[in-house]
């Protein structure tokens, strides 16, 4: 296209003419596509390419030939691939578009200025578009204004809650120190008592032993051959252990008890949780086994499958074969097709049940990693399982540790005066009691007074149980406070919140700082565990969710935006197993953004052509 063929519509010509009255040295053609703040740059007769590569004359400005590879000399034409075209869009917002859009037959600027060679008829739609845009922006501003107030309250609340929790933690830590000392004292005391008792017992036992030695020797062989087949191995083992390790039995017993107490302190469930826990108990036993079992079996099962597919597809029906081969491309398990026989339906249900177990066990192991003791716990747990133990204490042992809020409340109910205001505190009381006991106890009395000794033991048990509860509360709190809640702790309330969204058959549940799941009926898929805030607190990232078959681990990115309600929306899976969602919340109604919007609106209002143009 030669310059002689350039047709500048009259409107634009006029527009430019008025607009650049101050820069009479530039013709309308030369001014095409130049932003007002840039006009000065083009005033001289010889102009530099912005990248410094070259100089060009004013005649070369917008002459449809690219002289500067960076596009400096052709802001108004499509000649330079890397150029940018400015459209003023009076009535709306100015826009900078790629040079590739200039005279391409598509209307890009609402004022039509990008199409001036007549190949497209682009009416000026800025006024209507601008009006709509202004309305939209006004609405946004209103939302931001209202949201900002809510945000302030939220931040205030969060700050208070944070401070409160911090104060509590500090206090608890002090209390822990004192209580630890008490427990230590009691333990020493208890051990001395036990030692005395033990000595007495040994003495008695010696006497007894002497007396019965001969008798036992003669009977032992017969007895063991008669009884052992009836006993289960464990029983036998137990008996044997008892017989041989009788000396340390007492110590061991109390250790077990201590540990149980400690654990029950970790999670003190309310009634509601207890029932759940009972279920969990049953499930989690299965799950831990299923998961162990599966981790061995799933792959080898699958391996067999693979082997079958290359060796024994003979055995498959035509349909099964079709599904099997199709599944290579789709990555779907063949059982999950639509039209299934009843049998395979059952199999599917069963499998789903198993699937349900997965996240639980995954979670368990996840939380396991928080506590170093856990590996041992688990082994113990398995042993207990085999012993078929079902007492309440045991059940309490296996509460999921993520019910932190409950445990917090429970903690308070267990320590009714745990609040700073409660005076005199339970700690003072317990200190007093311990003092009394220790003073009252007479070590030199033999045999040991049984009621006194049990009082000491009880008090020790009580105090150490309190200590573990205290410590678990401390760990819960410090776990919480460790998180990044934003610059102003504005996301503090999110810690105990979950947000839900229903889409088709799925319910999505997003629990910030914890995890995100997709629930379909009875089956739960973990989309990810909390990772971090992203994009300067404009997104929450959940990662390492359940693995996709033949794919990546699931992950979820939750984009945050300003809204008057906390609302989860637009859950989507743009790439396989990579989910995105949008969460509206007042917390994202930011002052800067409001200002930005207001400035934008101002600009838009300013550029309304009604008063200064035409």
């Amino acid at each position, binding site marked *: *296209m*030669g310059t002689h063929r350039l047709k500048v519509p009259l409107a634009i010509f006029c527009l430019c003419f008025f607009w650049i009255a101050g820069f009479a040295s530039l013709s309308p053609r030369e001014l095409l596509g130049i932003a007002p703040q840039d006009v000065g740059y083009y005033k001289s007769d010889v102009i530099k390419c912005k990248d410094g*590569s*070259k100089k060009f004359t004013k005649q070369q400005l917008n*002459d*449809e*030939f*690219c002289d500067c*590879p960076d*596009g400096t000399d052709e802001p108004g034409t*499509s000649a330079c691939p*890397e150029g940018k075209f400015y459209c003023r869009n009076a009535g709306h917002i100015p826009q900078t578009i790629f040079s*590739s859009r200039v005279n*391409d*037959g*598509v209307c890009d600027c609402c004022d039509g200025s990008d199409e001036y060679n007549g*190949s497209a008829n682009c009416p000026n739609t800025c006024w209507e578009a601008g009006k709509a845009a202004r309305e939209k922006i006004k609405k946004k501003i209103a939302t931001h204004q209202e949201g900002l107030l809510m945000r302030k309250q939220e931040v205030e609340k969060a700050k208070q809650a944070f401070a409160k929790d911090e104060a509590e933690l500090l206090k608890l830590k002090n209390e822990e120190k004192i209580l630890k000392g008490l427990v230590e004292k009691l333990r020493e005391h208890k051990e001395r008592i036990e030692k005395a008792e033990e000595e007495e017992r040994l003495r008695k036992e010696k006497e007894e032993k002497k007396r019965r030695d001969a008798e036992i020797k003669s009977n032992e062989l017969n007895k063991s051959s008669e009884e052992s087949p009836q006993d289960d191995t464990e029983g036998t083992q137990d008996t044997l252990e008892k017989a041989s390790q009788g000396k340390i039995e007492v110590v061991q017993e109390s250790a077990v008890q201590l540990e149980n107490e400690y654990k029950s302190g970790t999670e003190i469930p309310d009634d509601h949780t207890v029932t759940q826990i009972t279920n969990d108990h049953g499930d989690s036993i299965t799950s831990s086994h299923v*998961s*162990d079992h*599966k*981790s*061995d079996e*799933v*792959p080898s099962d699958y*391996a067999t499958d693979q*082997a079958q597919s*290359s060796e024994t*597809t*003979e055995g498959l029906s*035509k*349909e099964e074969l*079709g599904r099997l*081969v*199709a599944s*290579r491309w789709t990555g779907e398990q063949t059982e*999950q*097709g*639509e039209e299934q026989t009843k049998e395979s339906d059952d199999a599917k249900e069963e499998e789903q049940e198993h*699937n349900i177990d*997965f996240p639980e*066990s*995954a979670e368990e*192991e996840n939380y396991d990693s928080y506590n170093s003791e856990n590996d041992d716990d688990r082994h113990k747990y398995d042993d207990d399982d085999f012993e078929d133990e079902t007492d309440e204490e045991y059940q309490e042992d296996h509460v999921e540790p993520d019910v932190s809020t409950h445990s917090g409340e429970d903690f308070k109910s267990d320590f009714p005066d745990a609040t700073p205001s409660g005076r005199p505190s339970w700690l003072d009381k317990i200190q007093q009691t311990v003092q009394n006991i220790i003073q009252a106890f007479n070590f030199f009395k033999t045999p040991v007074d049984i009621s006194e000794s049990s009082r000491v033991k009880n008090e020790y048990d009580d105090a150490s149980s309190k200590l573990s509860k205290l410590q678990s509360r401390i760990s819960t709190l410090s776990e919480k406070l460790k998180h990044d809640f934003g610059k102003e702790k504005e996301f503090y309330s999110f810690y105990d919140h979950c947000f839900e969204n229903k889409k088709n058959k*799925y319910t999505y549940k997003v629990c910030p700082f914890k995890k995100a799941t*997709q629930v379909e009926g009875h*089956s*739960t*898929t*973990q989309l990810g565990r909390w990772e971090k805030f992203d994009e300067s607190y404009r997104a929450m990232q959940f990662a390492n969710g*359940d*693995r*996709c*078959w033949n*794919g*990546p681990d*699931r992950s979820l990115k939750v984009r945050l935006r300003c809204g008057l309600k906390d609302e989860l929306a637009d859950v989507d*899976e*743009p*790439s*396989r197993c990579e989910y995105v969602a949008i969460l509206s919340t007042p917390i994202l109604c930011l002052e800067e953004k409001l200002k930005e919007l207001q400035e934008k609106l101002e600009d838009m209002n300013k550029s309304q052509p009604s008063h200064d143009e035409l």
Partner: protein
Amino acid sequence: MGSPDRRSPASLLLFLLFVLVFSSADAWKKDEFRSCRQTPFCKRARGRAPHSIPPFSVAEVSLSDGAVSARLVPSPAIYQVTDDDASAAADDNDDNLRPLLLRLSVYHGGILRLEIDEDPSSASTPKRRFRLPDVLLPDLEDRRLWLSRLSSPSDADFTSFYVADGFEGVLLHSPFEIVVRRVGSAAEPVLSLNSHGLFDFEQLRAKKEGENWEESFRSHTDARPNGPQSISFDVSFHGANFVYGIPEHASPSLSLRPTRGPGVDESEPYRLFNLDVFEYLHDSPFGIYGSIPFMLSHGASSSSGFFWLNAAEMQIDVLAPGWDDPAAPDTGRIDTFWMSEAGVVDAFFFVGPGPKDVLKQYASLTGTQAMPQEFAVAYHQCRWNYRDEEDVAAVNAGFDEHDIPYDVLWLDIEHTDGKRYFTWDKVLFPNPEEMQKKLAAKGRRMVTIVDPHIKRDDSFHLHKEATEKGFYVKDESGKDYDGWCWPGSSSYPDMLNPEIREWWAEKFSYKNYVGSTSSLYIWNDMNEPSVFNGPEVTMPRDALHYGDVEHRELHNAYGYYFHMATANGLLKRGDGKDRPFVLSRAFFAGSQRYGAIWTGDNSADWDHLRASVPMVLNLGLTGMSFSGADVGGFFGNPDADLLVRWYQLGAYYPFFRGHAHHDTKRREPWLFGEHNTALMREAIHIRYSLLPYYYTLFREASVSGIPIMRPLWLEFPADKETYDNGEAFMVGPSLLVQGIYEKNQKSISVYLPSGSSWFNLRNGVKLDGGASHKLDVSEDGVPSFQRAGTIVPRKDRFRRSSTQMVNDPYTLVIALNGSLAAEGELYVDDGKSYEFEKGAYIHRRFIFADGKLESIDIRPPNAGNKKFSTDCTVERIILLGLPSGAEKAVVEPGNHETNIELGPLTLRSGSKPIAFTIRKPNVRIADDWSIRIL
């Protein structure tokens, strides 16, 4: 949404371990496909030693109807059965002693045709052997030469006849052999058939009492109601250094490596059997999606070709020198051994003598590349799957946002209502027409997938209709064949039947294909046909087609017919005015007439990137000019490095499409960080700027059959260094591109062919030909060079899509040779209709000599009455290799002066002014003009 499925972290480790251990098992399932050993006809034929079977002799040679006809008489000698196959032993009977009919005919341009079939007058069964119709061009008979004289000296045991100037055919009588040779004192052979006495022909016969013809493979049984009927023979390419062709096979090698003989470990023949192979290997002779039984040879002294028109399973051995006699010295020829399960001998010898002659000879039989619409030559964006209208809009906007041009957005199978083709998922795509119009508003098109498997669902109108009309392929018992594919239980329209093809074509009308618009085009996948529960993932060989043709006889052409019917559907839809665009995965000889093909489900690894070049080159050599590999690799996740390199190379494939499996991460070009986005944008921009050159090359391909992407030796037939170079290639006659096939490669050795100098298109540096040059590898692009003496037309302005480039001005890049001369061509038409067939096009030749550039009209005066006009001008002329000093040029007519100054080779920020550039000559592309440098 992903199906619920989890693994506990504890089992994760084991799972990963399992992935590692079984990922190889997960890939190509070797056991599911037959080896030659498991294929009785192949095993039998391959087990024979040269001259070990009773020879055929020629009798009753005569001229009839302008062609040589004769009888091929088997000798009554007892078969020396060397293998243990029962049915081979059963061949030893009178039926195989009936004489065969032989016919030799000659076609214009250096083509000899050999036909051998049974004599119907003495047949012992009613079954006739299948001769594949519809592949040879309908006007071929018009180009047959009428032979009027046979030369058969009375004392000689042969008959010779004219084939082409300088070439004659020789029919040796006993034993039977055919030789094409040069006329003259040397009488050098070019091609020969049965020089090693391996010709065998199993004749149809009645089944004997107690004989079992069934064949089983894995759980599948092939009834083989017609018994053994295979054909095999040897073909020798004399004076050849290498042989090429017979796609489709994946290999990093350009030439066909020997499959038997000294130095070859136990290996398989090249298999031609259209198969849907899950995660195919990048280096294997096994058959994949398409088959073209055309092999060509090249050597320093001659090029030749051989084509066997036969759609049954074929196995071809390339024999290493010394295969028949280890003591024999290298004979300067390449022997090959051809085996087919069924059909007839209908074979063509192409005499060359140049490589382009061979390609033209082949094209004169099976046709040339259909001229595509301009948009189809641009960049295509595909994924399994763009999920819904919102996704489509977002991807479309993504390209605009990043200023990356693209022309076509593709929808894979998930857009349909339950894999019922011609329908839309009502939830995901409620407004397909509106969606297409939105794309069209930016000059973009959409492609949807239509596969041959039809869901067996009585509420699906297509199934209902096909069932009622009896349009499906039948199983061996005569019932509609029921196989398993994406929709589950499916049947397959019998595309061999012209009536059914017409019916199919009608389905593409706007009325029948609800939700389609004029900017919608079609993709045919799974047309091998892929049948998930069939033998070797395809249709049973005993399935029955129109005219009682067994599937075994036609298998390799099923996809061809399906492609043909679909393309005709689009042609009909547009009243014959809109050039169809149909991409097919399966193909056969002649598929080039119906559209493009791609190399199927490749993988995102460097080996597949490397193999893509020999694959596309061999497709081009065998007529399929319009092909490409999935950029990025279909399976798996390419890292940014691989993806960028693939874009940089793929931008030069004739068919340029990004595609990905649905389990892969999203990989639209802007998802890998700004820097990589810029690199991929640049790669795509290069393709767009070269669109005028590519379109001109497509014109050449559509006229002469010379491919767009060419092995170096096609342009430099005398340069032996180029014969097996599968890493670099020519785009047309002017550009040489070298791929980068390794991660983090720092430098690369590029061989530039002799007889010409080369200009590095990155920096304008001139390099000598006939030498390897060690170059630094840049991340900005793959090495590319313009050959001295050529002119390449470009359009350097960038747009959203090719549609908006129509009126943009041109840039001519002139690379001057030693005598400061260069030549190039430009072809332009409306880019969409068939008006060019009536002469509505511009075809110019640019000639630079003696300091003057001239534009000459080379559109022949008899091209037609229609004219194509455009106001497009030339905005810039870049001169590489011009000695310094020039400052002005004069444009005629008009005698106006224009400036010459230093300018960059590409208009990119930071590019340096390195080449003399004629500024704004502004001459119209449609006009005659000249520009003289002062």
